[in-house]
């Protein structure tokens, strides 16, 4: 089993390497002088030359990559032009709001979507099934920020239940933290719920058609046990897979949601950095998000071993 884990971890290394190369080339391959782009529109030739020298842009490209990658492995993501601090520091500062939002969103999504999916599959063709499918297509189609504004208008402005914007740190108390995060996480979770519920329903439906379900029911097991211990357990692999893949959508959604709800997290940082043309920060953030995405999918792959002992690479 260890060899499986080790092999799986090793398999992510080429992907991460390619991501690093792509991100590195992102800036170098654009038309125009990278130093000029980094310096911005208002720089003069001296400043451009200085930037070029300080970043080693006058060295051959492989040497540049070597230096950049070496820094990367030590955790140095470069320095932001706009904020004048290390990118790694910026990310660490803004991590908590984004992490809170993501954790809450994923929890809500899984806790709502999986039971709904199971119920829809159980009562296939019934009103719940059709309602869920309809909701699922809607959830995919209504963009996150449109939904955000609808919910803000409804819940914050008309009903006054939750605040419109802002974020409170967890250290200041779980009450205000939840109060401010409730609406953003619900907004973001709708998309995730649509995705997970759909896959859960399809997967559980497949599982319910199997012989062992018939056996379990014939044995006289209570239906709940049949659904959870037998159907869900066998349906788990695609569900967990889609949770991992959906993380990419979640990251995109986080960028928009933080923008709408004025949460000072990594998503907002991305938008601000892009608007300020702060490329070191943008590069660092892309690397960070990709790394998290690859890591989560690695964990998903490794979880297969526990979910389905038949899977062996």
């Amino acid at each position: 089993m260890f060899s499986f884990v080790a092999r799986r971890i090793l398999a992510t290394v080429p992907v991460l390497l390619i991501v690093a190369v792509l991100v590195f080339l992102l800036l170098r391959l654009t038309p125009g002088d990278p130093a000029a782009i980094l310096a911005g529109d208002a720089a003069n030739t001296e400043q451009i030359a200085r930037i070029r020298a300080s970043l080693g842009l006058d060295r051959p490209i492989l040497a540049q990559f070597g230096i950049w990658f070496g820094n990367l492995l030590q955790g140095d993501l470069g320095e932001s032009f706009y904020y004048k601090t290390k990118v790694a520091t910026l990310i660490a500062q803004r991590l908590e709001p984004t992490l809170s939002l993501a954790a809450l969103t994923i929890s809500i999504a899984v806790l709502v979507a999986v039971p709904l999916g199971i119920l829809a599959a159980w009562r296939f063709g019934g009103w719940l099934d059709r309602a869920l499918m309809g909701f699922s297509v809607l959830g995919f189609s209504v963009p996150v920020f449109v939904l955000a504004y609808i919910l803000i208008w409804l819940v914050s402005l008309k009903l006054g239940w939750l605040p419109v914007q802002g974020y409170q740190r967890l250290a200041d108390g779980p009450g205000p933290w939840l109060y401010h995060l409730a609406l953003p996480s619900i907004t973001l979770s709708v998309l995730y719920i649509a995705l997970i519920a759909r896959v859960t329903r399809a997967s559980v439906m497949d599982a319910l058609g199997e012989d062992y379900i018939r056996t379990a029911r014939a044995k006289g097991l209570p239906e709940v046990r049949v659904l959870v211990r037998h159907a869900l357990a066998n349906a788990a692999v695609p569900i967990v897979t889609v949770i991992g893949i959906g993380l990419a959508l979640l990251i995109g959604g986080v960028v928009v949601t933080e923008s709408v709800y004025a949460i000072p997290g990594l998503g907002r940082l991305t938008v601000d950095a892009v608007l300020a043309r702060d490329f070191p920060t943008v590069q660092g953030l892309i690397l960070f998000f990709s790394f998290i995405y690859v890591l989560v999918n690695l964990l998903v792959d490794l979880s297969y071993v526990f979910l389905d002992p038949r899977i062996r690479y």
Partner: protein
Amino acid sequence: MRIGAGVIAAMVLVAIAAPWLGTVDPSLFDAGSRDLLPGKSGQITTLEGETLQHTFLMGSDSYGRDIYSRVIYGTRVSLVVGIATALLALAVGIVCGLSAGYLRWLDGILMRFMDGIMAIPAILVAIALVALWRGSIVTVVAAIAIPEIPRVTRLVRSLVLTIREEPYVEAAIALGTPTWKILFGHILPNCVAPLLVQGTFTCAFAILVEAVLSFLGVGLPPDIPTWGNIMAEGRAQFVSFPHNVFFPGIFLAVTVLAVNMLGDGLRDTLDPKMAKRI
């Protein structure tokens, strides 16, 4: 599927017929007609300097521009970006997928490369590319198409891997048919159905991402009205004048929904086996 197709057809008609639908030039404004509620009528100044009386069907924004006109003209942008992105992603994806599936030496490198692109969340790729290349229709289309290309490539590659074992391909090879002819004349026509479905989903994704990019301020130049733009400019007054945000939002949601429904319907029709799964 028919509903989806119907709605999209209506949108296309709206986009083409924009100048005749009771709209004015979307960039026209009048300081005296700011923040009007939907249905109110007010004045608008044309480029020649004359003042017209105009009913603001969807209200006006903080500059006094007619939201209705901007939303209708925004339809054009969204549809163009959606279709262009889908076509570009399909074209490049097909070429890559065919090559990867048929030419074994290319398979490993190309798929690793695609895995790398897929590892980066799509919206981040699009944002980064548009930030680097500066916004214009071409760069936005390319920036949104690039994250979708690996998906199409994977699809085509998996289809090619199955189809290339078919007897008729073997026969074609035996007859000495050149490779490109086999790829485009025999293999590709058998991939059309799933590609069509993927194309519609790519179109929906593109419309969505373009709106997100414009909303965040990193999309097309601000003088072109797009639904995302209108919402971004209207968000400051959202609390008092929600119509700025709601009307383009509704159009956006309905369009993406229609394209998604079309894609679902196409998939159910063209391949009943796939309908049972996701």
